[in-house]
Structure formats: C-alpha cells, structure tokens
C-alpha cells in the first residue's frame, strides 16, 4: 500500500478490494448496505450458478456426447444429448457471464469513485442518498437496461447462433439432432465449399449479377419514385390525392400474388405482353428464355414494386423544402432543370442517402423477386444449381436449404453479410463526411 501515490489511497484500496470480491470495496468505503447487496449478488451467483455454468460451457464446447438410443423397432430408449439445444444453452450462459462481468466491473468502478471522493475529503453518501443520486444521474441507463438485456437475447443471441452453425456439421441427413450429434468442424465447411468444383465459377458469376441487380434495382426505383414525387408536387397537376392513391397501390398489393400474375403476363408464347407486341407488328420477346431479357424484365417489374415507397418518402421531403429558395433562384434566372439540379436534387440526396444504403442491402437479398418471377432461370450451363438470374440468396436456397444443409447456408450468409456490411460501412462513412459539410437548408 506504500506504493499508492497522489493520495489516492482510498480509491485504489477500494478498487482492489472490490476486484477481490464484490462489495468488499464498498464496505471499506463505509457504504455498508450497498456493499452487502453486491456481496450477496456474488454469493448468489457463485452458489447457484457455478455448476450450471460449467455444464453449459462444457455443452457448448463438446456439443454433447451421448447419442440417442433407439430400440430395435425404432422407439426411443434414451433421449441422449441434443447438440443444438446444448449450443444455445451454452451461448445463453456465455452472454449471462458477460453481463455478470459487466456488473463486476461496475462494482469496481463504483468503489474506486467513492474512494476517490473520500480521498478528496468528501463523505460517501449513505444508501438512500446513493439511490437518489443514481436515479438522477443514471436515469437514462436505468431505462435502457431492460431493453438492452432484451435485445441481447433476441438479437445478439440468434446472430451468434447463426454464425456458430457455420462452424459445425449441422446438416441432413446424417447430422440432424436429436437422433444424431452435431460436432464442431471449424473451417471445414468453408474450405469444402470453396473446393466444390463449380463453386468459383458459379459464385463469382452470381455475385456479380447480384451486385449489378441490387444497384440497378435501387437506382431505378429511387429515380422513378423521385420522378413521380416531383410530378405530384408540381403546382400544375390537378387531383393530387387521386394520383397519389393510384400510385401507392403497387405497394399495397401483396407482392407474391402480383409476381405470379406478372409471371403469366410475361410468358414468351402465351402472355398478353407479347401478344400486344405482335399486334403492333413487333416481334415477340423471349422474356424468360433469354438471359438478357429475363434480367431486363426483373428490373422493370421491380420498379413497379419499388417506386411507391420512394415516391411517398420524397413527397415528404419535397414539401419541406423552403419555397423561397426556388423563388430566389427564379429571380436569379435559373431555368427549371437548373433549379432541380442545384436545389432539389442535393437536398433530396442529403436526406435520403442512408436509406439508399438500406435499400441496396434489401435488394441484395430480394429472394421473392427472383425465386417467384423467374425461378432463377433461364438455365445456365456453366453454373451449378444456379440459373442466369439467380442471386446469391436464391442460389444458396436451392443448394442448401432444400437439402437441409444448414451449416453451408450459414457459411454463405456470412459471406453475403461481409459483402453487404462492407459496402454499407464504406458508404455510410462517405455519407457522414458528406453530412459534415455545411448544407444550407
């Protein structure tokens, strides 16, 4: 204790004692009730939870040893270990343990701070005053704690579970609990997927199309929405409410049904669209059997689905733009297009840029659109289990989930996550730099 310098005797002593055992530091600082409560908490945890915790961790590490026993006729004799439940239980225990460590750290910090107060000569608060102080200073934290814990178990837990699955061999038909055990296999699934002969060819091609598709889908719906929002906002247009209702309808109709109807409409031989084209005298277009036209059709149909959202959003933004800006510009002699380019567009981009990123991520994984409209077709001879319009997520569905290969599906979703998260983070940073500029609003 002679080593303690700067008169921080109490602070450090308190912190050290609290490190040793929760509550000791508080007792040292003469905050008996608080100290007792902390100590009781630690005792409770140690007493009731040590053994279950060790069991939980053992379950997480081994994923079960006892195989389910069946009689000769298949009835269950012994339940055995359920690997996946063990994994989830293990993760829950790990999260609880982290929470406990957090509380422990708070306890140390508290002892340190109160000790520092004593070093300065102030008297530490009694229990009632402590509560009152905490209530005032930390009200926000108190409110947030339950939601934080809730979010921890409903958001973080499933995410961790999904990621951990990628490192196991959880798949049909030989590794489905509870009849069979699941084991940790490390990066084996990753390597086997990469070594999967046609993997590199299919993966690269599908990835490129997915990115192009996400970009096209986002931008076409964005600018179509902007176009209609501008139209609706123009003073010349009458019956605004009617047009607005009409244009919102695509958003309101269930997507699945519309997609199936569009599928029939675009039928190359019998669909109405081609029949109209033939009537006009043009040639019928092979919508689904030609890769280019299939992609074209997807983008066009997606505009129908996607633009109402942007239109509604931008109508709101447009009405918020100060009319005086436009008047000033007109006085200065700016033409219509110039006004749009210099006032409207920058302001709209400024407000909606983060949403563009979200929309990109959404379209990247737009399973419905591809699976229901073209089923990923037309067939592509150089791809494995994928067609020319398959995006990553629909390809993975065909490759893995239809065959119960959960671990592989998890591996690819990690890949997808890395791509989408990487792009989003990069874009977000750029936008923030953009935001820090001075915007005259």
């Amino acid at each position, binding site marked *: 204790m002679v080593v303690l310098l700067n008169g921080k005797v109490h602070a450090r002593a308190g912190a050290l004692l609290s490190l040793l055992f929760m509550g000791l530091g508080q007792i040292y600082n003469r905050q008996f009730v608080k100290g007792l409560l902390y100590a009781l908490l630690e005792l409770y945890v140690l007493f009731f939870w040590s053994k279950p915790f060790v069991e939980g961790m053992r379950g997480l590490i081994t994923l079960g040893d006892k195989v389910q026993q069946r009689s000769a006729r298949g009835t269950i004799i012994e339940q055995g270990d359920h690997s996946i439940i063990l994994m989830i239980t293990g993760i829950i225990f790990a999260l609880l343990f982290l929470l406990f460590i957090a509380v422990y750290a*708070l306890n140390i910090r508290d002892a340190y701070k109160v000790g520092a107060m004593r070093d300065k000569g102030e008297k530490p608060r009694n229990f009632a005053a402590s509560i009152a102080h905490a209530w005032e200073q930390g009200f926000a934290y108190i409110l947030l704690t339950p939601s934080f*814990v809730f979010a921890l178990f409903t958001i973080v837990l499933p995410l961790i579970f999904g990621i951990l699955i990628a490192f196991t061999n959880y798949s049909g038909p030989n590794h489905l609990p509870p009849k069979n055990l699941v084991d940790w296999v490390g990066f084996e699934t990753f390597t086997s997927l990469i070594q999967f002969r046609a993997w590199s060819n299919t993966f690269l091609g599908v990835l490129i199309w997915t990115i192009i598709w996400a970009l096209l889908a986002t931008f076409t719906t964005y600018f179509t929405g902007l176009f209609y929002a501008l139209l609706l906002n123009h003073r010349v247009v009458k019956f605004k409410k009617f047009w607005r209702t009409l244009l919102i309808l695509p958003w309101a109709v269930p997507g699945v049904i519309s997609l199936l109807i569009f599928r029939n409409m675009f039928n190359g031989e019998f669909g109405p669209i081609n029949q109209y084209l033939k009537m006009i005298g043009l040639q019928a277009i092979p919508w689904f059997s030609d890769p280019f036209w299939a992609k074209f059709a997807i983008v066009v149909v997606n505009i129908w689905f996607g633009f109402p959202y942007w239109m509604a959003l931008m109508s709101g933004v447009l009405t918020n733009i100060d009319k005086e800006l436009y008047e000033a510009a007109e006085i200065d002699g700016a033409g219509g297009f110039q006004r749009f380019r210099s006032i409207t567009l920058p302001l709209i981009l400024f407000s909606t840029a983060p949403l563009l990123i979200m929309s990109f991520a959404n379209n990247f994984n737009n399973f419905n659109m591809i699976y229901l409209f073209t089923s990923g077709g037309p067939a592509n001879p150089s791809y494995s289990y994928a067609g020319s319009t398959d995006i990553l997520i629909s390809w993975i569905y065909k490759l893995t989930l239809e065959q119960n290969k959960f671990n592989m599906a998890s591996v690819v979703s990690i890949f997808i996550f890395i791509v989408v998260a990487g792009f989003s983070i990069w874009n977000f940073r750029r936008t923030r730099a953009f935001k820090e500029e001075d915007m005259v609003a």
Partner: protein
Amino acid sequence: MVIMLVLALVLAACGGGNNNAGNTGSNAGGETSSNGQNSGNAGGNAGDAGAEEPQIEEGAQLLVWDNSDAEFEWAQYVAEEFTKKYGIPVTVENVNHTDAPGKLQTDGPAGLGADVFLAPHDHTGNMASAGLILENFYSDEIMNEHIDAAITGGSFDGKLYGYPIAVETYGLFYNKDLAEKAPETWEELFEMAKAFNDSANQKYGFMYEVGNFYYDFSFIGGYGGYVFGSDNTDPNDLGLNSEAAVKAAQFVKRIHDEILPIKKEDITYDIKDSLFKEGKLLFNVNGPWAAAGYRDAGVNFGVAPLPKLDNGEHPTSFSGIKSYYVNAYTKYPEAASLYAKFAASKEMQLKRFEITGQVPTRKDLSDDPTIKSDPVVSGILEQAQYSIPMPNIPEMQTVWGPMASAFSLIWNENIDPQQALDDAKKQIEDAIKLMQ
C-alpha cells in the same frame, strides 16, 4: 449502483427461467426414458404374442395429419371408424403431406408432432435418417397386401417404414372430342399432333412440362436408364448420363423440333391446364390431381398410359406413394401403428377411392370393378404398371435441380445432350459429396 440492482433483478428473472428450463430438460429426458422403457416392454410383449395382441397403451389419444378437402373428409371418416372399433379418441388436423416431413423435423422432438401423418414416399430416406419415423410394426402383413411399388417406396435401408395409402402417377390426358382414341405409340402421337398443331390460333397437339424432371425421367427409364443403381438405393452409382439417358434426351429434342417448338420457360403448368380446358390442347401429360378440374370445366377427356417408345417399351413414369408414417416421438407407438395399419386396410382404401378418386395400393383392390370402371383411374393404373417409384434416399434431393437445367438446355438450345448430361451428373456428384 441502481443499474446493478436492475440488472440483478432482470437476471434473476431470466435466471429463474433458465434454471427451470434446465430442470425441465433433464426431467423430460428422465420421463421419456421411462416411457421408452414402457414402449420397449410393449414392443417386447407384442413380439412375444406374435403381433396378434399388441399392447395398446392405456389412455392413448392420437393426432393425425392429412391433406385438406376430400382427403381430410376421408381422414375424419377413418378416425371415426377407428374410435368406434378400438375406443381410442383420434383428432385429425390439416397439414399438407408435402409440408408434414419438414414440420415434423422441429415439432417431432418437441413432442408437438402428430402421431400418424401422411407424407410422400420420397421423403422416407430423409425422415428415417433423421430418426423421425418408426419402423412399420406390421411389415410382413403390409408387404403381402400392397403392390411392390408401394413397398419399395416406403422402405429405406432394407426396412419398411410406410403404411401405403394411395399411389399416383401421370398419364396421357387426351381430348376425346378431338381425338377418337389415344395413340399407342409415339409415332402415332407425332402424326396426330402435327395434324392438330396450329400455332397462329395457339392450338397445340402435345404439351408436357419439360422443365420438370419428374416427367423427363419417364423417357430415360423407357430407354433402360436409371437414376441410382441397385434399384435406386446406391447414391454412388448415377445412371443419368448413360446411353439410355442420351437417347431419351435426343427423343425429347425431337418432340421440341417436330411438334412443340416453344421455349421451355413458356410451357408452364397453368398454361397447359388452361389450354386443355379450352380445347386447344390435344394431348396433355398430367396426373389424377387434375381430373376434377377438367371434369368441372366440362372437358370430355380420357386418360391413357403414355405411348410406347420406338424400342417397344413404355416410358417409366415416376410414381408417388402417399403413405402414413408413425412419428418416432409419439407417446403411443402401438396405438399409432395400429391406426396406420387400419387406415391402409381394404375397407378404408376403398372408401378413400370413393371420396377422393385416388388409386389404392392394395393388391386385392386392383381388380375391383368400381375402380376399374373409373376411366381416369384405370388409365393411371395401367400406366402405374410401368411406373417406378421416385427414389427415396436423401441424395435424391440433389438430382432435381441439375437434371431440370440439363433438359432445359437440351430443349431450348442446340446443346450436345451428352455434354449437358455429363455436366449435370458432375454437379450432382459434387453435391452428394458435400452431403457426406
């Protein structure tokens, strides 16, 4: 510090919950093992008694999953009759037979699954490997009473699991107003179709779903090919790029070139259906599930077996056997197995035919006059003689995708059939390797 209190409270609440969950888990384990002992004893007793007097569990209550509409009606009828005969209450719920295996994967171990459920036979391998179904307790009886295809379909790894209920395959639906009789050979069909074809008026002589391997296989089998070796049980022996398969592919290409020159993506089930109902399609490859719709639309149609190929053989259509399976997690295995056997009995299968029109699987019903006089069923039954049940091993799931792609390419493009089939075979082999 108050945060600490709040956290502690929250944790105690969650913690209490977890503790209980942990206890319940081990308790459930304990209970099931004692149940297991009981059913083990029951099984032992049944074995002793020579399966004459199965020890039905006391207080047994059964839950059954079956399809909706007519099939649900039949399922409820069976449930009532069973309760009348054995005094065991039975509830029937609607879970479609294609959804049941997937639903059972999660519900079964959780104890929420039905005791007996209807499922298509091609999931037998998956379900058996995942330990979701019990063996057929009355396999000797069942094997003697039902047609071979039904038994093969419901068996996996040498053991019988299913209690066959109905069999279906596809045949040649033809418009009786437009064609006096069904063609016996493909050459006849080609002639009749060419005469009928009129693409300007959207009339076609023949259509079938090229992009669905379920139908394409009939040609491969007809030329002597197969999917998996050893009667569709050996996943390491793939016969999909054999000479027979290439011949089949060339034949399919011939269909495209001579009588159906439209892209595969444009031949959808809906289009085929509506054209047939409008009388614009002469020959339609479809299954008995479509009969009711055509009847309602007033089409004068007949069903014939698929015409003979140029080698004198019939195309070997894939057949699907709907069977009842017993959930391995059932609390009443004896009662459930008895119910499944009851549902597969002669009276019940005849009743199913009367209510749903589906073809029974029992040998003693194949000569029944009511069944033979039904034109749809007799046509399907005849085709069923040449049909092969879909392979039910788990590896079959990897086959559908690549084969559909291969046939699409063969149909749409001028691709070399051997090349396309070799590619497909490679894709399937790789996917099977990933399954190990």
